[in-house]
């Protein structure tokens, strides 16, 4: 298989954990760049948004006045990189008064307990 050739072995489960809001710090943007690169290595990639990370996906971002690039459209491009496993923690949405309908991409909403199980199944979890 092509995956095995490139990675030199079995496919690993990579989780990217996003817990920071966009713009206030650069972590959200630079973490997205890691996801896009890792996607080209044909691994099993999951992207998780919890805590303030759910704000990365908020609709209606308009950065004209802060003069910082709006990178929220890039989350919609993840599908084109075959990154299809996007998870959001329900407790994080609820605490912030947000629902799935407020997000720019389709996601799977998991409870905290389900999120914990998913994390434990990974080989590598990257956070920032």
């Amino acid at each position, binding site marked *: 298989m092509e995956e095995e050739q490139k*990675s*030199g*072995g079995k496919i*690993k489960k*990579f989780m990217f954990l996003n817990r920071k809001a966009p713009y206030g710090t*650069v*972590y959200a943007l*630079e973490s997205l*760049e*890691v996801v896009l*690169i*890792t996607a*080209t*290595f044909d*691994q099993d990639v999951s992207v998780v948004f919890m805590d303030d990370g759910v704000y990365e996906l908020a609709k209606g971002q308009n950065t004209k006045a802060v003069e910082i690039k709006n990178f929220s459209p890039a989350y919609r491009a993840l599908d084109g990189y075959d990154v299809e496993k996007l998870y959001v923690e329900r407790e994080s949405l609820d605490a912030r008064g947000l629902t799935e309908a407020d997000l720019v991409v389709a996601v799977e909403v998991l409870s905290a307990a389900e999120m914990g199980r998913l994390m434990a199944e990974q*080989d*590598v*979890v*990257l*956070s*920032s």
Partner: protein
Amino acid sequence: MKIGLMVNEGPYTHQASDTAWQFARAALAAGHQISRVFFYHDGVNNGTRLTEPPQDDRNVVSRWSTLAEEHQIDLVVCVAAALRRGIKDENLAKGFRISGLGQLADAGIKADRLVVFGD
């Protein structure tokens, strides 16, 4: 075991780089291999050769250079993050090299464990 490290914060500002270095030293002493240290976000600032801490303080940058030399550790500074923050070959410290984010994915794939140190 082969262990890869990711360091996300700069020297002094945050303890992340200190803890990562202590971890690396302990892992090596226990017979493990540190396959790569990938510096991302402000972590790229660990790669500047221009730091000059006070005499009574540790030198975070040169400690990394020394450890890398003694144990053939691959210290990789992310090029995209480095360009944003002004780290280039002209101010790069000994033992560090600048490369792409693929080196982080590669470390995650090839190492038995990847540990992230950040803020």
